[in-house]
């Protein structure tokens, strides 16, 4: 006979595994520090690329001026500005990334805990069914 509770439980589990659970289960394999560390490392690279692209646009915009005034320009100051700007952008985005990764990790952990609780419930229901079947079999043999 169909066990409605079990079907409901399995549907919930399958839905979670197919959707949000994919990402959550991946995240749950990491320690919190590792997950945030990886996020910050990705942020470092992406911010560098983004910042470099921004500078490319600025340089292209001022290309005529730069080509005309390159000998007069104070290159160390320009480099300093470039690096300073990069550090500021990096710090801002690192803070955002840290906050986002922390929140995501906590949420994933809670979701995965709920998922395991449901999974445990499912395995218990299987255990009960097995016991019931065994009893039935034993009863049949005794007869």
């Amino acid at each position, binding site marked *: 006979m169909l066990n409605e509770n079990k079907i409901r439980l399995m549907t919930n589990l399958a839905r979670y595994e197919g959707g949000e659970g994919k990402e959550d289960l991946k995240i749950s394999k990491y320690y919190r520090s590792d997950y945030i560390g990886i996020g910050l490392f990705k942020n470092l690279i992406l911010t560098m690329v*983004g910042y470099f692209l921004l500078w490319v*646009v600025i340089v292209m*915009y001022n*290309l005529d001026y730069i080509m005309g005034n390159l000998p007069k320009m104070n290159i160390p100051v320009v480099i300093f500005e470039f690096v300073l700007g990069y550090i500021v952008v990096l710090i801002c985005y690192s803070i955002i990334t840290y906050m986002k990764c922390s929140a995501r990790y906590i949420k994933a952990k809670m979701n995965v805990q709920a998922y395991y609780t449901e999974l445990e419930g499912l395995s218990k229901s299987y255990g009960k069914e097995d016991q019931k079947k065994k009893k039935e079999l034993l009863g049949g043999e005794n007869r």
Partner: protein
Amino acid sequence: MTFMLELKEKLKIFYAHNSAYLIPVLKFVLALAFFTNINSMLGFMQQLNSIFVVLVLALICALMPFNAMIVIGCMMVVGHCYAVGLEVAAFALILFFILLIFYFRFASREAMGILLSPLAFALNIPCAIPIGFGLMSNPVSAFAAACGLVFYYFMHLVQEKAALIQGLETGELSKKMQILLEGIVQNQTMWLTMITFIAVVIIVYCIRRMSVNYAWQTAITTGGVTYLLIMICGGFFFDVESSAILVIVQVIVSCLLMFVLKFFVFNVDYSRSEYLQYEDDDYYYYVKAVPKMTITQKERFVKTIGEEPEVRRRGQPKQKTPQAPEKRQSDRIVPAPEQSQQSKGQSDRMAPAPEQRQQSKRQVVAPEQRQQQDNTVAAPEWRQQPGQSVIPPEEKIRQEQTVSERQAEQQRSDEVPLEDSLEEKLMKSLRDL
């Protein structure tokens, strides 16, 4: 209103039944509209302008997540820009990468702003975007709407300056970049619209979340008025030329659309609000419960002539109503004399007289049905009971009459008092002596 609620329920049921097919179809339509809009705005690359290519791309998008639609759309824009010039394509690519790295990396689910903003501008209802985001999402989505604006105004810029850029020589990279960057940075209409969008999203969101009656309606109206005021007043400070009447019409149409959206998303009956108050160990709770406005589906009455009216819901199988046991008994089983003595009064009351019974049978069966019955079920009711005693109705009536006569005699004999009979017996014995 009832009609609208019924329509909503029907749509919900239809969506629940067909969501597996409906979602890809809607995605296909959205993708088709998005790509067609890009082509109509830019349309510099002949290969991408082909309806076949657009249909194939839309078909692919129907089976993929929304973000794939945005990526393909961005690639199409880059392709069109490449037809204008390599520098323009490079600039478009850089712009999209910057948007991706600095914003959509954190809010990938809000990339819908890029998708919907150009469509809203094409339909002349830009006000619907910030109000919609304010109603359906959070304040952070204001940035998504702003990014969508940048996307739209970039396409608009390329459309306007394409001829100018194509006229420049290949070596004039700096000049091309200047045209594009100035077109974005110094586009005051874009900045004014962006400020308006952000303000409207935040205001609509804040009002919508308030615990007051008609919060959504107030939010939509306030959002519309805010949009109107900022766009008209901002026109004095920024160098923006816009028609006030056009903006008013846009706002009215957008607000009406948002009211339709509200009807489907958040339709509650404030007149039946309940205020609850309770506590637990840590908190006091002041709860306001507002019931949703729903309507139950109309019940269908299936009336079959010859049977009792039966109420049947749509989708439920028709259930046969069993006949009352007393009636069945009186119709089919002729009671034994002992039995009839006990149940005489009851059977007299329950079962109609033979003439009446025949007459009533004639009344309940409609002529068409009778014809059908004559054709299909030739045997009368009393012959169709295999397990029961088979007695024709005339015989049954006669038997019942005789039984009733016997009962009457028995009753008469029973009615003789006990004392009288004893006296008579005594007198008889005395006479014998």
